[in-house]
């Protein structure tokens, strides 16, 4: 096992990392770099009450089908109401101006407005026979059925209902339309009232909002939009920028602490610098991977992404330091051995630990990705990519850079061949 020469392969690991990081940077350079999540952008919010109960997951799927997989859907407790925040809805160009008031094609007939049928009912109480009188009505005060007979209808016939007067002296009154005659009967004299299905009222074209509303109506039936408004971003861009600054300040402190912790070794500052280079490597690759996901699968950068990136940074530094610690121990034990062999020994001694630790994290994350809810997938994806990159960089970059620095690889690479400063072998 001790024959494994990891340090000797550093050319390759640098090449792989360099190419990957370069690719990541290229991907990042192609606009759009990221699709900002709805926390960072203005959007629309709607409060929708469905007539029947709808599951949150179905609703999310419906919105995803309608092109809004970013929709944030919150059920209000104990009702069929949903609060839905989406990106700003698009109004297709001209959708407002094109809905022009049309000249009426069919002029309204002169005279009293025709009666509108609202439903049908069967004359007479259930099983009644004979004929029933249609009477007039006294609408003053508590509406009262009159005595003047306007017409008759046979019990058992299904007739049209024009209006239902509620809360009259004798209960509800039904205004019926039999042939050309319209008159009133008491509610006890009709049965099996059926409301006429409402005709679909053509909606004015309000662009995407109409598309979504029609899509939801097809899937979940009737609903009522109780509130619709545009909303500001919940997280300002300044807050994100400040977070980035805070992280940058933090890395400076990390660098200082590492230099302090390794002060007993020669050139401790290099440890800090190399750890941060490895960290940058992980962050660039994670960002690049995410930018690629953004472009290919419409994955968005949201607050979860920021958190995931912080987690990756924490992990990367942690992993690097464990390897450095082993280097410190080896250098102390055999100070006269070549630096590269001390580093190699440290890598070989810690590689099992590095891989095992990452495996446990990746195992948890992968399980949650496969089995867990879809809403946190972007968060898990960041951690998965970042931890994988972090593990690789702690083996292939952070410590190898130390060796490269010690042996003057960079200078040699640029042709200024310089005798590598090697410590005498023990």
């Amino acid at each position: 096992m001790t024959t494994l020469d990891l340090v000797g392969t550093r050319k390759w690991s640098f090449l792989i990392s360099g190419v990957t990081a370069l690719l990541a940077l290229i991907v990042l350079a192609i606009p759009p770099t990221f699709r900002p999540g709805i926390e960072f952008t203005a959007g629309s919010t709607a409060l929708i009450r469905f007539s029947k109960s709808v599951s949150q997951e179905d609703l999310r799927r419906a919105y995803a089908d309608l092109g809004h997989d970013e929709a944030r859907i919150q059920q209000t407790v104990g009702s069929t109401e949903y609060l839905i925040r989406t990106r700003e809805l698009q109004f297709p160009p001209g959708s407002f101006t094109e809905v022009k008031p049309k000249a009426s094609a069919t002029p309204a007939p002169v005279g009293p407005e025709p009666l509108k049928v609202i439903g049908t009912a069967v004359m007479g109480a259930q099983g009644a026979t004979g004929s029933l009188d249609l009477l007039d009505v006294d609408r003053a005060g508590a509406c009262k059925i009159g005595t003047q007979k306007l017409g008759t209808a046979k019990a058992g016939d299904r007739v049209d209902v024009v209006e239902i007067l509620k809360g009259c002296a004798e209960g509800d009154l039904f205004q019926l339309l039999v042939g050309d005659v319209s008159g009133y009967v008491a509610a006890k004299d009709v049965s099996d009232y059926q409301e006429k299905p409402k005709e679909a009222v053509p909606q004015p074209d309000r662009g995407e909002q109409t598309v979504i509303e029609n899509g939801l109506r097809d899937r979940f039936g009737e609903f009522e939009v109780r509130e619709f408004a545009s909303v500001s971003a919940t997280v300002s861009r300044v807050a994100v920028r400040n977070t980035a600054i805070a992280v940058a300040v933090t890395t400076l402190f990390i660098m200082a602490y590492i230099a302090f912790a390794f002060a007993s070794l020669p050139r401790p500052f290099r440890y800090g610098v190399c750890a941060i280079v490895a960290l940058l490597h992980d962050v660039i690759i994670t960002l690049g991977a995410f930018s690629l996901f953004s472009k290919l699968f419409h994955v968005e950068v949201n607050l979860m992404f920021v958190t995931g990136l912080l987690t990756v940074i924490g992990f990367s530094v942690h992993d690097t330091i464990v390897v450095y610690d082993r280097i410190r121990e080896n250098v102390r034990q055999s100070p006269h051995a070549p630096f590269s062999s001390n580093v190699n020994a440290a890598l070989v001694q810690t590689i099992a630990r590095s891989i095992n630790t990452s495996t446990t994290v990746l195992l948890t994350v992968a399980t949650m990705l496969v089995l867990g809810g879809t809403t946190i997938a972007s968060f898990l994806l960041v951690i998965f990519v970042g931890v994988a990159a972090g593990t690789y960089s702690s083996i292939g970059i952070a410590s190898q850079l130390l060796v490269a620095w010690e042996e003057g690889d960079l200078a040699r690479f640029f042709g200024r061949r310089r005798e590598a400063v090697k410590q005498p072998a023990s």
Partner: protein
Amino acid sequence: MRRVRRFLPVTFVILLAAASLYLIWPSTPKEFLPGGIPWPAGKGIEIGSFERRTLRLGLDLQGGTRLLLRAEVPEDFQGNVDDALEGTMRVLRKRVDASGVSESEISRQGDRNLAVQLPGLTPKRARALLGRTAQLRFCEPAGANAADVGLCDEAGEWQQATGDVDGQRLALTGRYLKSNAYVQFDQAGRPGVGFEFQGDGGEIFRQITERRIGQQIAIFLDNEQLSAPVVQSVISDRGSITGLTLERAQDLVIQLNAGALPLQLTVLQEQSVDATLGKDSVHRSVLAGEIGLLLVALFMILYYRFPGIIATVALVVYTLLSIALFKLIPVTLTLAGIGAFVLSIGMAVDANILIFERMKEELRAGRSYAAAIDAGFSRAWPSIRDSNVTTLITCLILYVLGGGFEVPLLGTFDAPLVQGFAFTLAVGVGVSMFSAITVTRILLHLFVGTRISRRHDWFVPEPSAAAEGARA
């Protein structure tokens, strides 16, 4: 005696774990555990006013109260309405943060409305805290010139108290208060609010108290009279409001320190809303996370054998302790917090792995079980220390920067997004160091001198290496 020394620490660990388990057992187990089993409902703890019945979860995981507020812009409002709305949002945010509710969400909706979502506040309390304009005024009994300086109440009994500074007549209001008002208690233990003046406030108050010595003055919040103390002596720098309930005093302190609202707010709607990540989605993720941890345990046991079992037990204790701390402090757990927690679990596992790898090396080198434990711990310690201290430094800086401070020339800098993450991670890392060093060690020591400790093949998987170790 040896028996006591051996079992006492283990008993301590077991008691700690049991107490944590009791504390954190959810009151609605269905949401966190597999269905189909009649789990008993947990109660949490409640000692006097100290109440921790449920774990505090953020809007993304559990939901909360949503208030839709309408900003009333007066007809004669002068100035930019947008600016006033921005200012109102800032004050609301300050009030919410000061009330100890973290992870709230405030956004502008439509033209004049503000949507506020708060985790864990009752709608009633949320309204009391957010809705008030909190314009504080100091008043004296109305005199002849009452109409000129402005009345405090509709009955016309009080007028604004004023003082003359540099030839200008200034009314004493909340804007002369330093934003460090505090809850205080008088000798009888009754709560009140103490405050200090800034700028010209001290001078104005001195003039008022000089003029009104032995008489009543009154303090009004919006149009409500809070208290009407009798002036005992000339005061210039500080004052107090008495006769409040404790909750009222706490709210008033928050409102005074956050400043008055530029615009008056009315509540249009209030609703209890579910998790933004979706209840069913969160439920599935929790179960998936639990399965993930089981897989980790399985992996550790298969790879590390006996120490893997110990590590799994330590991991369980670690998880229980962390969640118990989250609940006790209390930390409002959001997805960011869960991220921090996953990271700290990774670090806790890592600490154990570091120790076991070192122990394996020691065992291979032919040391006894007891010696290997001690050597393993002492040699793994520097890397556990350095990696965890780095993380703690990260947390500290993120937390401090997150809190916000004044940068000369550039204004206020704050990064509140990462504060919750930093705090949760710090707690997690602290507990992880404790559990790796104490719990794992106590458990490993339990087996010193037993048959297990002589079975090196239970610790070192490769038989050849074990044989070499035995020979050396």
